[in-house]
């Protein structure tokens, strides 16, 4: 996130798109309610009429995968009416002319036609957002899990720059991270192109710095992304895969493809706390300590680094993940000799400028938001204050592209996926919690009453949902929360995995699969 959670409360306009905030991030939803109570305008755009929509000044349901067209339409309205922040655009940004040329192609009538949202609503949303003193955008996977994910994010950045709603308190473009430590996993270099702290692996000076710090020869070649790893296992380029605390057999799109890939591995090692469909395929499964059994840190969505503290001993023979890694490293002839999580943190901070000023003693209390470059630095609650990290903010001219798969005669329904309020990710943990599992013991597919009537499907009936990639049998929930012609399935359930159906088509740059859009057909179960 560019800004902190608390700042959301003081925004006078909040624009939520592609985030089921009250379900995915309940404590951030609290901030939105408070802002609303203070008089902020709330705009919610989502294919489902989620709980947040009930509090919204404007709720609009977009056709799946049309965010770029909708946002370009809003910006067209803002620009033509002169509601944009001319001073900000002039002083802080570049490439404005090319951008304007693009949004001119999206008069609200055209944006409306593509997105299914009325011209009136588009104009009103544009006006609320542009005329606010401090407007904050909140988004989540509903924006990124598309073949146009990067386009969507850049278009939101365009909107915030156009109106000067960035680099000040209570503004910004704020992605909510799906999992607790996604931020930290990325910060720590869990990416094929960067070392910890987003330092590129293919820049010679940086490579040299890490070679010295780690006393090793390092590769300048950018590595494979997760989807490329799967393809690599199938075509034989990749032979061994080490997975720590992840369950791609439920979380990845097109599970059948993932299964074939994992089965092709010569050596698959999984470190985890529970058996999962992924551990079932492994050659070696190593039991790890859970978060309650270890010391360490997590970095939350607002970049706040916070302590994790050991409450009990690891269960059974489980060990800390770092201990397991260290023991393997020593056997490989690359010595590691850490005595505690804190020692690892200190080494990490010494090679990661954004974390350089952070240490365990400083994390007592409220934690610290990075960048925090020195031991006396107070941390950074909001980014891009006086300038963007690249200098001037870059406007991008972004055209609308349709999703990779759209409904047709054979597969006439749109499918979108997401979360349910009691469960988390692949359900490995929440589904073992008695209270949570009782609330929602099985998956459901939401469909609109008109569609249910036409197909003669009753509430609670088991139906078959099929895509070009597979079929699942699942209980129907008839609700007008979802639009006509669209169905929704939460993805937490291994036995009725939504990702049997989803499309593995990737965003060309971020390599994120299009979980949020594919085409399916429905039939009564045999």
């Amino acid at each position, binding site marked *: 996130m560019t800004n902190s959670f608390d700042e959301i409360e003081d925004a006078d306009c909040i624009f939520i798109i592609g985030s089921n905030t009250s379900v995915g991030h309940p404590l951030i939803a609290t901030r939105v309610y408070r802002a609303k109570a203070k008089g902020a305008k709330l705009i919610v755009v989502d294919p489902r009429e989620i709980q947040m929509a009930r509090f919204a000044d404007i709720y609009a349901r977009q056709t799946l995968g049309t965010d770029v067209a909708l946002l370009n339409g809003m910006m067209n309205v803002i620009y033509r009416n002169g509601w944009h922040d001319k001073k900000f655009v002039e002083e802080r940004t570049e490439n404005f002319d090319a951008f304007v040329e693009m949004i001119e192609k999206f008069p609200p009538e055209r944006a409306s036609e593509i997105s299914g949202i009325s011209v009136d609503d588009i104009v009103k949303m544009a006006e609320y957002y542009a005329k606010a003193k401090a407007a904050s955008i909140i988004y989540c996977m509903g924006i990124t899990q598309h073949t146009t994910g990067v386009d969507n994010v850049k278009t939101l950045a365009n909107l915030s720059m156009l109106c000067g709603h960035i680099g000040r308190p209570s503004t910004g473009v704020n992605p909510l991270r799906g*999992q*607790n430590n996604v931020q930290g996993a990325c910060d720590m270099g869990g990416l094929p192109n960067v070392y910890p702290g987003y330092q590129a692996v293919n820049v010679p000076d940086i490579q040299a710095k890490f070679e010295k710090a780690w006393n090793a020869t390092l590769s300048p070649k950018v590595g494979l992304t997760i989807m490329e790893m799967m393809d690599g296992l199938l075509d034989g380029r990749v032979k061994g895969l080490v997975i720590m605390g*992840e369950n791609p057999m439920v979380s990845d799109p097109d599970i059948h493809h993932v299964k074939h890939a994992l089965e092709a591995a010569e050596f698959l090692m999984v470190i985890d706390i*529970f058996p999962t469909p992924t551990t079932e395929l492994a050659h070696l499964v190593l039991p790890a300590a859970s978060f309650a059994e270890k010391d360490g840190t*997590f970095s*939350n969505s607002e970049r706040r680094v916070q302590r994790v503290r050991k409450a009990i001993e690891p269960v*059974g023979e489980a060990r800390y993940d770092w201990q397991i890694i260290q023991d393997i490293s020593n056997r490989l002839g690359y010595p590691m000799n850490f005595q505690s999580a804190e020692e690892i943190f200190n080494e990490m901070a010494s090679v990661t400028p954004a974390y350089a000023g952070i240490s365990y003693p400083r994390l007592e209390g409220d934690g610290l938001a990075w960048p925090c470059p020195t031991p006396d630095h107070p941390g950074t609650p909001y980014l891009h204050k006086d300038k963007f990290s690249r200098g001037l903010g870059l406007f991008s001219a972004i055209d609308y592209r349709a999703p990779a798969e759209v409904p047709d005669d054979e597969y006439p329904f749109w499918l979108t996926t997401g979360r349910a309020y009691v469960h988390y990710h692949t359900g490995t943990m929440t589904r073992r919690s008695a209270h949570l599992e009782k609330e929602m013991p099985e998956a459901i597919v939401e469909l609109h009453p008109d569609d249910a009537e036409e197909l003669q499907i009753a509430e609670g009936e088991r139906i078959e949902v099929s895509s070009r990639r597979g079929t699942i049998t699942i209980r129907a929930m008839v609700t007008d929360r979802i639009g006509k012609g669209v169905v929704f399935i939460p993805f937490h359930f291994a036995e009725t995995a939504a990702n049997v159906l989803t499309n593995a088509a990737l965003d060309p740059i971020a390599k994120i699969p299009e979980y949020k859009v594919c085409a399916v057909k429905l039939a009564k179960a045999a």
Partner: protein
Amino acid sequence: MDYQSVLTTCTYCGCGCGLYLEVLDGRITHTLPSKTSPVNEGKLCVKGWYIHEFIQHPNRLTTPLMRQDGALKETSWESALDYAASELKRIKEANGPDAIAFLTSAKCTNEDNYLLQKLARAAIGTNNVDHCARL
């Protein structure tokens, strides 16, 4: 009777709520929200309130498991770690470091993640490191 209450951070979503795990004689019995946490200010969502329920669930993996004759069988840490190292070494020697890939975790700590990518880059010699956050 030994009672402790340990302040830590929720492992579910990216809010990162502060919570206390209540530990009675080595078992976690309840969860309480931290009132002073700037994130959750004394509140938790339903997942957080019941977070203690999964931690000591009987299904937890408690011993290393190695595949033998098609099935996963219990084994000792020594032989599990030896096996892991010998397989990684074998593949690296036969096919080069880029034939091995690593998935770090959005659920593990920063320290765990740092060390796994260091293993990949410094000990194996590949940048084939990613995680499931794209997902």
